[in-house]
């Protein structure tokens, strides 16, 4: 459930590091609320201020060039909104005013012990979705296509799956406090779109690289114990997820995957610390956490011309990165067994 206040010191630090994104989102909400108030004021007095409205719509270039009163006369009276549309606009305005004036913290979420991380994030985003739903309802009302039976849901909560592309780019950052035992980040993948940013402030000992499986070419992924490092994710134009440890531990990987750093995984991934990968008994299936660690190591290592390294047989990576085509050629040679000896 979303919390009312930032409870932990690290969560506050994380939020501080994400402050640019937070301010940007609040600015969007305030602007939307102001725009709607202006629109409502004009709607109420539309016939008195038609010239003024025309001037604003034509923009500064028209000043001294177009007579706005005459332009408005040319277009005639705009049709009034229907009672249903007016009602929708008023409800939407109330929602936006409430969000803009509320002290409620939209950015912090706490996963109760034993709770579901995915559900917590989903719930927080759904609540924020009210802002987007209200904005959409206004647009539909203005266009004359708002039908209460079909569109009233927009004036409630709007789940993330119904957010459009622009809304996903405007998404506010979320700081989620979660116990290590409840850290199951795989379910977050569906939310990592647009510019959604999620910071997981974790308490306790986690698996070494739980976020490794969320690495995709266009997703910013970070594991760190330094809250200040999160500012880099805040500035990224990509969706992102970060894990903020409560302390640096040898058994936990610290790394950054920044989509802007290159076109190959090993260029995009910067590893600050990688735990030793323990051996597991022959024939036993690797535990998930070991697979995640191996996955991270594989992605972060430059390819080697050594077929053995490609095939995962433990050879050291080559000192110099090589072209993917060379890597493929090396692998093919290893499969055809044409090598000497």
């Amino acid at each position, binding site marked *: 459930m979303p919390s009312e206040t930032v409870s932990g010191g690290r969560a506050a630090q994380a939020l501080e590091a994400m402050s640019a994104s937070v301010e940007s989102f609040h600015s969007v909400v305030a602007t939307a609320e102001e725009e709607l108030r202006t629109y409502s004021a004009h709607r109420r007095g539309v016939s008195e201020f038609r010239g003024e409205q025309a001037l604003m719509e*034509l923009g500064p*270039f028209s000043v001294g*060039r*177009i*007579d706005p009163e005459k332009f408005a006369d040319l277009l005639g009276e705009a049709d009034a909104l229907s009672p249903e549309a007016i009602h929708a606009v008023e409800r939407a305005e109330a929602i936006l005013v409430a969000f803009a004036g509320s002290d409620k913290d939209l950015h912090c979420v706490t996963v109760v012990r034993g709770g579901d991380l995915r559900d917590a994030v989903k719930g927080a985003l759904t609540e924020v979705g009210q802002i987007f739903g209200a904005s959409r309802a206004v647009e539909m009302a203005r*266009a*004359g*296509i708002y039908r209460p039976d079909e569109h009233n849901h927009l004036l409630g909560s709007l789940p993330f799956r119904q957010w459009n592309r622009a809304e996903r780019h405007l998404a506010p950052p979320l700081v989620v406090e979660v116990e290590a035992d409840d850290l199951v980040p795989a379910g977050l993948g569906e939310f990592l779109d647009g510019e959604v940013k999620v910071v997981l402030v974790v308490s306790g000992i986690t698996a070494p690289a739980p976020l490794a499986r969320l690495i995709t070419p266009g997703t910013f992924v970070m594991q760190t114990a330094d809250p200040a490092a999160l500012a880099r994710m805040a500035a990224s134009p990509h969706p992102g997820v970060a894990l903020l440890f409560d302390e640096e531990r040898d058994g936990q990987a610290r790394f950054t995957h920044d989509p802007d750093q290159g076109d190959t995984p090993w260029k995009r991934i910067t590893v600050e610390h990688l735990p030793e990968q323990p051996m597991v008994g022959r024939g036993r299936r690797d535990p998930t956490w070991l697979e995640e660690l191996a996955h991270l190591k594989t992605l972060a290592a430059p390819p080697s011309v050594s077929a053995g390294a490609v095939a995962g047989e433990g050879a050291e990576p080559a000192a110099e990165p090589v072209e993917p085509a060379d890597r493929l050629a090396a692998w093919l040679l290893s499969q055809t067994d044409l090598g000497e000896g």
Partner: protein
Amino acid sequence: MKLPTVGEAAPSGREVRTHRVHDHSVEIVSDSGEGAQKCGQIFGSVSAKMGNGVWTVEIIPAEVEPPPRNPAGASGIRIRLGDAEVTNWGDETNLVVAFNEQALLGRHRLNALAPDATILVESMWATHPDPSIRAQWEAAMEELADRSYRIIEVPMEEECLTVVDNPRKGKNMFVLGLLSWIFDRDLERAREQIAHAFRKKSEEIYERNVQLLERGYGWAEEHLDFRVEVATQASDLPMVVMNGNEAVALGAVAAGLELAAMYPITPATSVSHMLGEVFEKYGGLVHQAEDEIAAAGVAIGSSYAGRCSFTITSGPGLALKTEFLGLAVMAEIPLVVVDVQRGGPSTGLPTKVEQSDLLAAMFGQPGDAPKVIIAPATIEECFHVMTTARRIAEALRTVVFVLSDANLATGVAPFPRPDLSAEWQAGPPDQRPIPEGLKPYSWDSRTGISRRFIPGQPGGEHTLTGLAHDEGSKVAYDSVINERSSAMRSRKIAAFQSTLLPPEVNGDPEGGDLLVVGWGSTKGAIEEAVERARSEGLSVSSLHLTFISPLPPGLKEIFQRFGKVMTVEINYSDKKDDPFITEENRRRGQLAWLLRAATLVDVDCWTRVLGEPLRPGKIVNAIRESIRSGGDA
């Protein structure tokens, strides 16, 4: 061979003279790909942010990568700085930084340099191992000796090699350092601007460029004996610095346009580059179509579907879009067309400025295809025009042309940060059910305007057609119907013209000997020329048109207050004393054609197609000549 310095003595000693001037023009010229333009853009931005008036013009060769060390292939940028607002590129360059003497020679041969210009030139060519290059250097120096230039050798390559392995990728930042010392630019601002320019590059590249900047600054401090002071004046208003294409792109975002469909074409392409970076974030979409025709089709389709769309092009692309633009006019689909004009006809001069497309925009379609044509005159107007264009296109259900040009497209100038308004983003189109009896072209007989139908709107079902049609969009077999629909499409433009205000006269509105009329990007040069001519006592004023279709009211009455009226344009016209040219067969500047037809006033013209912006000094000469000769320019 040591360079024979021409003019004043070569710099020596450490006595530094500072020249205080109101206005100074700098050129950086190189082979293509050496980054002279990036250097100039950063220098211009830093200067603007420090409070100088700035206007930059890029010098772009006709070929993408011409042979190196070629006078015809000079690539670079001119930056004009002033202690007040600068509105054009000026006349001649006072200070040149040349990466090789051949690029310098190209500019010299175009008379781009002031006779007493100071030249900083890369010294390595004088002692190059290749004897043919040394011979070229010597020949160039001999040719340059015709003027009183002051030439100073700078070991750019040698200095850059202390920082980078490939000086070709570093000289520009070294030169930025030279200029920063000469003009006393704030190095911290320069570093910030470098960081911005290389924001997509690694930290290492940024650091290296800063090292080069500092190296250039240090070299200048140690070796040069002159500085130039153009007083800065910090603005009370927050300012932004951008070029015209960036301004069009950001203006489109601010105007709430939703789709840009384009096909790459010089010099318009960078509009879509800018949009590509920011448009999606604001809910817009850039669509690069398979060709110019398809781009127009996508924009028209999107607008028909209820979005607000625009297409971006230049002369040859405009030619290809001709048929589709006719469809937009005939079907009354709102559309904004941004045409960044270049030299024509055909592929013409892709990288050079020309006000080439006015008549093509106006009359490009068969039959009568009335549209609105707007020509922004400044980079700031390139931003704001998009809101106005969108609103007119949607209100009148018509095609609105925005005629920019290569001068505005690549020129960089500061202007007050726009105070954005949500009202610029007009509300969504009315999609309520269509009242019974209302048809897709139920024209208001007085204004010619009809309600826009959106596909899917209950009660609005109709067949869209480019054939002549009646109010219900049914193909018209009755010739009377074609007459009426043509009249309605034309009447919209007349009705809109009734909302336009008469243009202001710059100078003496009461009248005088000569009225100079311009349009588009020439405003700054014309008004500077008129001011100079008036200071000489000449009775001349100017008038600048931004709405060209329809023309604003009152022009004939204004023209009649002046002894003569002459357009100044960057397009072709026959000169009166050319062979075979008579009053009847003389082909005039494009605006002159229109004004003569619209006002029946004997409007003369002075035009040039040199592939460069007009110089105020040349316009002053034309004004003098026009007044002296009784109208013959």
